[in-house]
């Protein structure tokens, strides 16, 4: 009996132990299979799956006729995983031969404690083949998107540039970064025993959404013409800087915008000074080109008529204890001649009829002292003062284009308003944003800002400005054979930082005008800052206007004035 009891006890004990054992196993199973299931699935996944990031290509930038101005391309970049590099020294030596970089630098990188180091980024596409031959442990090549600007420095200030990590830093690249950039995608693939990828199973793909493309209003050929002519004048006159803007007056579309000094956006090294788009970021004292504003204002207010005689005081006139001079000693002249000869004295007398409040109102109506709202980054308002803050001489100064700061773009848009029947337009550079499929996502067109002057005033102004380019005017060198040109010269003396007065040798020489005068298609501003050889706007800038205009009308097919018979050609 006792023997049986002992036996049963042993069975019970064994059963309890076994049961406990099972319970522990069950518990562990529960823990592994249910509580920690997600974690382990992931762990397993990591071993036989790999995730690839799929870079979204940055959108391209095109000119108005679809010519490529900026494009992204996949180029090889070389990285190292120092942990897996057995012999950093010899790897560095072999790599330096292909990458053409310093051995010691490579070696330091390969000896570092980090998991991942870049050895060379954005190599030329043809180098990829040399790299395939290397097959070093711990060294890999991956494709990365790199920005290319096939036209080099052309339009660089408008385009700006994107950095090595696909981020827009200047110009349109910065302004439209969100649209150009796109979104990265992800792809999970099965890994085989060698770490290669097997495509389909458990396909988990988040497609990258490629960046959108920009279509500009810029015409590549007009831009080229503008850049070449600006280059020529800046080099010849040894000027500090220069700006050319070509605008379609009826729409406000910018056809060309050239700035000197310039840079190559493919290798944007060095000076932020070179990157600045002076056409919108810098305010200049415009000088005589600004006489247009006071003149248009006086005509609009019917305070003067083009034929009215104004006395030029023989070139010397006292304003608030300061003597104002004219370049020529003018006697009696019509108001039209005041502008044609660019008489300071005549213009001051007309501005005095206007008075500060009215003049200030027109300055603002023409868009000065406010951003033009152009779609470019870094735009300034310029420098204007409320009439209450004007000094005793300010009215006279502003009439001549001093004591006021305007950006080249503001000036060209104000003149565009005269060319456009009095309507002030919003300037713009981007006309379309397109998805990579070609579908148009956004479209931009002409926007009227306001109408500073009536159609009648605009016509009278145009007539007067035609005279500037005819014999006796200051802008004769701007005349384009076969076309009626209307425009205005400007030679603004710059303030000498040492004396605080106006310098005789440091000037901003400019010409702004439009053609054909009876149906304006182009407004062109040429601004040359501190030319060293000659200073007069009529001598420095007017011929540049003429050469740009003559080539642009040919390219754009703008017909000359018809004299007598018309030539018709069938095509």
């Amino acid at each position, binding site marked *: 009996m006792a023997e049986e009891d002992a036996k049963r006890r042993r069975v019970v004990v064994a059963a309890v132990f076994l049961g406990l054992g099972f319970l522990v196993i069950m518990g562990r199973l529960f823990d592994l299979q249910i509580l920690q299931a997600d974690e382990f699935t992931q762990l397993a996944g990591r071993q036989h799956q790999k995730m690839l990031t799929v870079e979204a290509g940055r959108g391209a930038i095109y000119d108005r006729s679809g010519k*490529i101005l900026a494009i992204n391309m996949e180029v090889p970049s070389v990285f190292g995983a120092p942990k897996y590099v057995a012999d950093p020294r010899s790897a560095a030596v072999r790599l330096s031969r292909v990458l053409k970089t310093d051995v010691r630098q490579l070696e330091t990188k390969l000896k570092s404690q980090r998991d991942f180091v870049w050895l060379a980024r954005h190599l030329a596409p043809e180098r990829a083949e040399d790299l395939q031959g290397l097959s070093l442990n711990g060294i890999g090549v991956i494709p990365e998107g790199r920005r290319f600007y*096939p036209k080099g420095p*052309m339009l660089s200030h408008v385009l700006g540039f994107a950095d090595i990590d696909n981020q827009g830093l200047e110009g349109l690249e910065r302004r439209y970064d969100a649209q150009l950039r796109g979104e990265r995608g992800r792809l999970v693939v099965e890994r085989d025993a060698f770490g290669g990828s097997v*495509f*389909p199973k458990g396909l988990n793909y988040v497609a990258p959404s490629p960046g959108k493309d920009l279509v500009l209003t810029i015409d590549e050929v007009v831009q080229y013409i503008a850049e070449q002519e600006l280059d020529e004048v800046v080099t010849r006159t040894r000027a500090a800087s220069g700006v050319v803007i070509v605008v379609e007056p009826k729409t406000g579309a910018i056809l060309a915008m050239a700035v000197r000094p310039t840079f190559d956006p493919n290798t944007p090294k060095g000076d932020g000074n070179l990157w600045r788009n002076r056409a919108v970021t810098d305010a200049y004292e415009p000088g005589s080109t600004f006489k247009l504003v006071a003149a248009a204002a006086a005509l609009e207010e019917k305070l003067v008529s083009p034929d009215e005689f104004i006395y030029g005081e023989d070139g010397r006139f006292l304003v608030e204890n300061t003597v104002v001079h004219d370049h020529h000693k003018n006697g009696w002249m019509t108001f039209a001649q005041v502008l044609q000869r660019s008489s300071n004295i005549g213009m001051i007398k007309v501005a005095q009829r206007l008075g500060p409040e009215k003049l200030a109102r027109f300055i603002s109506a023409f868009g000065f002292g406010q951003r033009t709202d152009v779609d470019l980054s870094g735009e300034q308002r310029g420098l204007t003062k409320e009439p209450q803050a004007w000094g005793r001489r300010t009215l006279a100064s502003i009439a001549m284009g001093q004591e006021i700061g305007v950006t080249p773009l503001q000036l060209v848009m104000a003149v565009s308003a005269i060319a456009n029947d009095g309507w002030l337009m919003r300037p713009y550079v981007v006309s379309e944003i397109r998805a990579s499929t070609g579908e148009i996502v956004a479209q931009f067109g002409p926007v009227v800002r306001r109408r500073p002057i009536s159609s009648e005033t605009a016509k009278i102004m145009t007539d007067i400005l035609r005279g500037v380019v005819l014999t006796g005017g200051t802008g004769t060198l701007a005349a384009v054979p076969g076309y009626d040109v209307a425009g205005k010269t400007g030679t603004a003396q710059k303030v000498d930082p040492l004396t605080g007065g106006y310098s005789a040798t440091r000037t901003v020489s400019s010409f702004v005008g439009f053609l054909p005068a009876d149906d304006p298609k182009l407004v062109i501003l040429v601004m040359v800052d501190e030319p060293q050889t000659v200073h007069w706007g009529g001598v420095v800038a007017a011929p540049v206007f003429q050469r740009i205009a003559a080539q642009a009308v040919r390219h754009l*097919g703008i017909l000359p004035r018809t004299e007598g018979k018309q030539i018709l*050609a069938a095509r």
Partner: protein
Amino acid sequence: MKFLVGAVLWVLALVAVWEKVDIVRTGYAIERLQERKKQVQQEQQFLRLEMAKLTSPEQIERTAVAQLGMVRPKYDQVVLVKGVSPSSPDASAGRIVPAAHIR
């Protein structure tokens, strides 16, 4: 009967294995084609870039002047005429045709 069932199961197993192998094989083929597609796309991109460089006005002018001995036409050598498309029913809606040379 038992033999028949066994044979059917055996064949089914073979088919299953064969399918699995085929999936993997096709997977590799897709992978290869993807790679090839990428290469061709890259090549195309590269060619587009080359084309953009070669058709830039600067490059065209350089080639025209330096290699082909061309010169820029003078003002009086270019006449812009109002072009009229013959197929157009409305003759007054003429198109402007740029640049024709006369000697």
